[in-house]
């Protein structure tokens, strides 16, 4: 264990120094790494380029020897595959035959019927050729390549290809090499064409195979231009016997002499075939690559909180790729030649090496405290993850080592590459990626500085954000998912993903371009490969239309199509058989898959092997017209009429258009089908991508229109669906505390006045005044006002015009309240509530308020007939406990409401907990045991927990002197659907006793206190969170993990505990075990508020950002930029509805997408006041403070829409 710890420390320290180094000298290190990569990749230049095309090697025929099996001396000349005997020697007999002279009596079929018929006699000739000399008698049977069965899948071709015998093919195979079948075949062309594949084909066809020349050269068609038929007899020989072949050659030449034949029969060509990659083989390959790209995409998507996501993602990919290249290069350098198919194992190598380390590094560095120097951040991030990185690497190396001992060569080679790749990947991560990361972090901090400065000046920053894939020009922000909420006028929607995809497509015109390019390629392929040949048609057209028969023009026009020599501009009336140099190697025109597919029919692979092609034997036939007429089949003449009437070359366009028309129709039909498919596809895309809810857009539109206008422009009329807030007015000062139990709402202002409201209707039920020096007057007024409020003594209406727009439902209820806004020191109003303790010194409003009430006095004079002390007396008589004279001049720091009891914690040294009857406003009991101010209160069941400034924690029990069974449950009039809450009738005796006080719960002041699910959780400035059991106030856990004071805690009934601290970190804890579930850094500065839903965690910070995190993975989903000072005000209404406070407005967001749903403006002139507190009630209403007013907003319409 100690060794491990030591090792761990050493590794950590090493990484730390390395991080410092990398961040200190980024440029030299990157240069060094680049040099390393290039050096390691240099050996790759020697490797042959990948390609599957066949390779040729030419030797002379005369001194040909079968190459030895072992590589011999002169390696420079011979390729390394030229070893051992070839698979086969290919001997082709090239036959050119024509009916000459051409006669007008002949029909087009005659041009090839009798020439083709000659093949049978020639075949007999070849088969029966016997060469005998001193060494013995040799025939073709002895020398040729004997083949067995065809592959089982090729039953269709069984009749056509030879089986169990010599591999000898010729056009005669169409008729089973029987002259009788040929003679009785009524339609030769159909016989030939019926085996042709339909549609697009790139490989060898049967016609090519049997004819042995390219399909267009054969001349077996009705519209052949020069009526010369060309075909070959192809034989594959096992052994090369120069004498037999020589005698065959001379015999055939002698029998069928070729005039003007100048073929040089000197060279034999050896063709080596690489391993074939067919479509079928490509599919798995493509699949693995698709998976690989998906993996890279999903991995790099997790990079967050950096300046340039794309840059870092690119760096990560570069790291992995160059480490692979380095591994191949290094292996080559040390003499290991890769034998595996590189393209195939590449994805697996990437997956094995992985992008995880890079991501872990990024996350770790990003999570370091932001206030540190960049160097230190990098170093800390590295050293934090050093152990896990080393551990992972060791594990992977071990696994690969195990793989190495499987002793399977392929696996061993893979493992070797993987090991070298892993090591070089580690090297690159440490040097390259870390440095890039440090540069990025530095850039981000600079950008952050730039962003912060204008933001504090109240100006939206105006830097261009080039990486933002958005349609509307948004203000720039640090993270791509941040939503700026700068001012209402600048609010922007975060577009749904599907819309962003559409916008991206629209902006780049990607779809159109792809479709265009695809169409062009497709048409090109169609044109090029169509056997009927637009190409030949075009060539014919061009030559037709050039009356001069000029040499240059047609050749220019058909240049890429390698015009055959027979294609003379003016077809000769007498077919001429000419031999040119291009006939020497006619097989070159064939598809390069011709030979592999030829042999594959017999399950012979040519992959990584070679064949030797011997020079062709030319044979010429001249058929007289009489012979042609004799061999004519009776049905041949039915093709005649169109041509016989016009046998001159002018007749040719008749034949050609028929075919080209067919081709055109085919193209047109295919195009139509493709178009229909495209339309359907687009329709589906439209249905998928288009928002289904158009009403939502309407709302957004209306809101934005509203946002563009100045807020106090009354020309605007809200749309029908606009939510109108209900203003609850009555407080004189800014509201400090808010508490609610769903039915009732208690609020406390800076003046110490507590008001209780009905959360449903907005009625003010009770006013509990502050018992300051002016307690007599103000309490009397407010008390009596409560009683007589219904009479509506509208006294202040004349003298003090109501400035704010009253809520329509209750215009006059609070009209009697004197308007004190003029007296309020506005600078005091700016003070954020989170610094409430600073207000504890007290601000004496007494004088001001008194003066205001004195001015107000005449109109309410009847009320003042009662002597000032009376209310206090009355309260004393009601409360059964004697109340000691206390210093009431203290602020309420914490407020809790349960049932109809209000618990308030005060800042004063003595009185800590007081309970009021919420309905009657009477003080039921108080407890003054504590000495330190109460900073937080929790009221759960019948217990009250109070946290104090000195770090102690007090547990109180509220006892009612009445059996529990007799507790009434309050079902309010007209609110039957609401859950009942316990109610204490006014004559019950309520006592509040301190059951336990934990003196040193924390070393420093307790800042937050939350209670739920029988647990009390406290967070303190001493960086710890403690969990107590509510029943016995026993401390269960002390959770450590923050590096700053705790500022926010969330716990709910499902025992989810989240805490946020001054370090900007958010921790999720398991309450049952006390272990930390996840830990993320999300904010610059304190985390001010935290809420968890079932799927995400929502946090807000002093940086005025609201971040939404995925709860299970800890990935930041997006963030919302808030108005300055309103950062902490947000609430979650349902699992998918978030509400945030802004400058005089509240905004509703779709939590899942981050879409702004609606913004509700609380008042007309609301510029200066931001919503600082926001409480979500059970009945889908929210209450927010709004200066000295409360605003009650119902959100039923949004909920309906979401359901």
């Amino acid at each position, binding site marked *: 264990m100690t060794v491990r710890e030591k090792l761990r420390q050493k590794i950590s320290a090493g990484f730390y120094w390395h991080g410092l180094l990398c961040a200190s000298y980024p440029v030299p290190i990157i240069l060094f790494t680049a040099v390393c990569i290039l050096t390691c990749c240099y050996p790759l230049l020697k490797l042959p380029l990948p390609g599957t095309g066949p390779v040729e090697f030419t030797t002379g025929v005369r001194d040909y020897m079968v190459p030895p099996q072992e590589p011999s001396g002169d390696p420079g000349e011979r390729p390394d595959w030229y070893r051992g005997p070839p698979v086969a020697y290919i001997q082709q007999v090239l036959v050119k035959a024509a009916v000459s002279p051409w006669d007008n009596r002949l029909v087009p079929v005659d041009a090839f019927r009798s020439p083709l018929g000659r093949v049978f006699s020639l075949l007999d000739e070849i088969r029966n050729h016997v060469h005998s000399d001193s060494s013995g008698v040799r025939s073709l049977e002895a020398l040729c390549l004997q083949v067995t069965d065809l592959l089982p899948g090729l039953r269709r071709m069984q009749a056509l290809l030879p089986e169990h015998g010599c591999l000898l093919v010729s056009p005669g195979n169409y008729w089973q090499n029987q002259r009788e079948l040929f003679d009785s075949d009524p339609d030769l062309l159909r016989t030939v064409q019926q085996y042709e594949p339909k549609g697009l084909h790139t490989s060898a066809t049967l016609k090519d195979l049997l004819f042995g020349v390219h399909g267009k050269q054969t001349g077996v068609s009705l519209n052949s231009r020069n009526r010369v038929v060309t075909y070959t007899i192809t034989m594959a020989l096992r052994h090369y016997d120069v004498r037999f072949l020589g005698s065959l050659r001379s015999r055939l030449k002698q029998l069928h002499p070729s005039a003007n034949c100048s073929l040089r029969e000197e060279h034999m060509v050896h063709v080596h075939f690489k391993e074939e990659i067919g*479509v079928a083989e490509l599919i798995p390959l493509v699949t*693995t690559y698709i*998976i690989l790209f*998906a*993996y890279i995409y999903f991995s790099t998507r*997790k990079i967050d909180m950096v300046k340039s996501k794309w840059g870092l993602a690119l760096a990560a990919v570069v790291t992995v790729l160059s480490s692979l290249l380095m591994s191949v290069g290094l292996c080559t350098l040390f003499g290991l030649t890769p034998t595996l198919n590189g393209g195939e194992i590449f994805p697996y190598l990437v*997956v094995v090496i992985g992008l995880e380390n890079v991501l872990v590094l990024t996350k770790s560095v990003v999570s370091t405290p932001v206030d540190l120097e960049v160097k230190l951040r990098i170093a800390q991030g590295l050293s934090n993850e050093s152990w896990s990185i080393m551990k992972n690497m060791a594990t992977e190396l071990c696994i690969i080592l195990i793989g190495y001992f499987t*002793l399977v060569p392929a696996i061993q080679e893979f493992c070797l590459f993987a090991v070298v790749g892993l090591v070089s990947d580690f090297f690159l991560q440490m040097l390259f990626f870390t440095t890039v990361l440090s540069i990025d972090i530095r850039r981000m901090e600079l950008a952050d500085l730039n962003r912060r400065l204008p933001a504090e000046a109240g100006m939206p920053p105006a830097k261009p954000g080039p990486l933002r894939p958005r349609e509307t020009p948004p203000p720039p922000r640090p993270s791509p998912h941040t939503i700026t909420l700068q001012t209402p006028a600048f609010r922007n929607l975060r577009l749904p993903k599907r819309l962003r995809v559409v916008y991206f497509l629209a902006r780049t015109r990607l779809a159109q371009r792809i479709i265009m390019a695809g169409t062009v390629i497709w048409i090109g392929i169609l044109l090029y490969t169509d056997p009927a040949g637009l190409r030949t048609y075009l060539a014919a057209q061009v030559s037709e239309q050039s009356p001069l028969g000029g040499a240059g023009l047609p050749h220019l026009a058909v240049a890429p199509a390698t015009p055959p020599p027979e294609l003379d501009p003016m077809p000769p009336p007498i077919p001429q058989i000419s031999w040119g140099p291009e006939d020497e190697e006619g097989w070159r025109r064939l598809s390069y898959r011709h030979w592999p597919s030829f042999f594959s029919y017999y399950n012979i*692979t040519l*992959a990584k092997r070679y064949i030797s092609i011997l020079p062709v034997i030319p044979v010429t036939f001249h058929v007289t017209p009489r012979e042609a007429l004799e061999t004519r089949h009776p049905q041949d003449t039915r093709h005649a009429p169109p041509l016989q009437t016009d046998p001159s070359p002018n007749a040719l366009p008749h034949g050609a258009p028929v075919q080209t028309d067919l081709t055109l129709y085919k193209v047109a039909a295919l195009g139509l089908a493709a178009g229909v498919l495209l339309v359907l596809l687009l329709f589906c895309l439209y249905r998928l991508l288009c928002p289904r809810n158009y009403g939502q857009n309407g709302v957004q539109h209306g809101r934005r229109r509203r946002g563009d206008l100045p807020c106090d422009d009354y020309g605007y009329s809200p749309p029908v669906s606009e939510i109108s807030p209900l203003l609850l007015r009555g407080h004189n000062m800014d509201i400090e505390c808010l508490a609610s139990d769903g039915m009732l709402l208690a609020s406390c202002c800076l003046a110490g006045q507590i008001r209780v409201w009905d959360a449903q209707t907005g009625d003010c039920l009770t006013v509990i005044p502050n018992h300051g020096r002016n307690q007599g007057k103000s309490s009397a007024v407010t008390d009596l006002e409560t009683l007589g409020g219904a009479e509506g003594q509208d006294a202040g209406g004349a003298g003090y015009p109501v400035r704010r727009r009253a809520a329509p439902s209750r215009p006059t209820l609070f009209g009697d309240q004197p308007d004190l806004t003029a007296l309020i020191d506005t600078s005091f109003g700016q003070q954020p509530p989170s610094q409430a303790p600073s207000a504890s010194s007290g601000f004496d409003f007494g004088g001001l308020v008194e003066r205001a009430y004195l001015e107000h006095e005449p109109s309410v004079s009847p009320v003042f007939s009662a002597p000032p002390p009376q209310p206090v007396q009355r309260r004393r008589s009601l409360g059964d406990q004697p109340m000691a004279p206390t210093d009431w001049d203290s602020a309420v720091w914490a407020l809790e409401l349960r049932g109809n009891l209000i618990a308030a914690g005060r800042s004063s040294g003595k009185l800590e907990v007081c309970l009021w009857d919420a309905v009657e406003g009477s003080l039921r009991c108080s407890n003054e045991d504590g000495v330190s101010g109460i900073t937080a209160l929790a009221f759960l069941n019948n217990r009250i927990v109070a946290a104090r400034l000195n770090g102690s924690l007090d547990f109180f029990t509220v006892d009612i002197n009445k059996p529990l069974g007799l507790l009434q449950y309050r079902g309010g009039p007209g609110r039957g659907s609401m859950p009942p809450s316990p109610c204490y009738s006014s004559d019950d005796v309520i006592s509040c006793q301190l059951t336990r006080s934990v003196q040193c719960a924390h070393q420093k002041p307790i800042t937050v206190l939350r209670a739920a699910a029988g647990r009390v959780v406290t967070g303190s400035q001493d960086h710890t969170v403690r969990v107590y059991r509510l029943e016995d106030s026993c401390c269960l856990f002390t959770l450590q993990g923050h590096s700053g004071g705790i500022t926010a805690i969330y716990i709910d009934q499902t025992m989810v505990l989240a805490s946020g601290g001054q370090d900007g970190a958010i921790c999720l804890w398991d309450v049952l075990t006390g272990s930390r579930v996840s830990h993320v850094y999300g904010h610059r500065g304190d985390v001010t508020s935290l809420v968890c839903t079932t799927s995400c965690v929502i946090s807000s910070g002093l940086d005025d950002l609201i971040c939404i995190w995925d709860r299970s993975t800890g990935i930041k989903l997006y963030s919302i930029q808030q108005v300055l000072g309103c950062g902490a005000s947000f609430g979650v209404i349902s699992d998918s509805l978030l509400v945030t406070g802004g400058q005089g407005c509240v905004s509703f967001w779709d939590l899942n997408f981050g879409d702004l749903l609606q913004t509700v403006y609380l008042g007309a002139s609301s510029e200066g006041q931001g919503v600082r507190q926001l409480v979500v009630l059970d009945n889908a209403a929210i209450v927010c403070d709004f200066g000295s007013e409360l605003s009650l907003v119902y959100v039923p319409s949004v909920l309906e829409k979401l359901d």
Partner: protein
Amino acid sequence: MMTLVSAVLSGVYLSLFRRGLVLFAVGVLLALVLNLLQVQRNVTLFPDQVVATLFSSAWWVPLCCGSAAAVVGLLYPCIDRHLGEPHKFKREWASVMRCIAVFVGINHASAKLDFANNVQLSLTLAALSLGLWWTFDRSRSGFGLGITIAFLATIVTQLLVYNGVYQYTSPDFLYVRSWLPCIFFSGGVTVGNIGRQLAMVNVEKSHND
């Protein structure tokens, strides 16, 4: 309230259906691709007909695989939920993609590599499958379900081959190849991984509509 309940229910079933559909598609795709790999083991060069026959003759293989994938992929999160131990290990799409890649790699190895004997091949593949489970799953339920799937699927293939529906070129484990259970096991784990991830995404987004 009723509308809410019905909406939630329909949402659940809809998501179930969608998940099933996605899993089915994944299964069909994987079956086609991996079948092709297996075909390649016997045939080195392809006449053009092979691709055509692959899609036409054994049409029921991808369908069966797709249905099986849907069932397994839905079963995994379901069992997780019933056992009350939600799968939290490496729950992200990148990991799922890695898992699929490794699974394809295992198939690739089984089809392409030349081993000295079948025992070695089977042992290597078994080790690879276990490694796959350890790297991407590490849950007992996943292991158990994978074993069950491998067992059942092997029996089914044995029966199929016994009844002559199709056959293996060189059977060494009754009627099938001995590496078949390993492939089934890793396939089960992979599909379960996908299913769990889909379920998680669905839970996250179940309140969208």
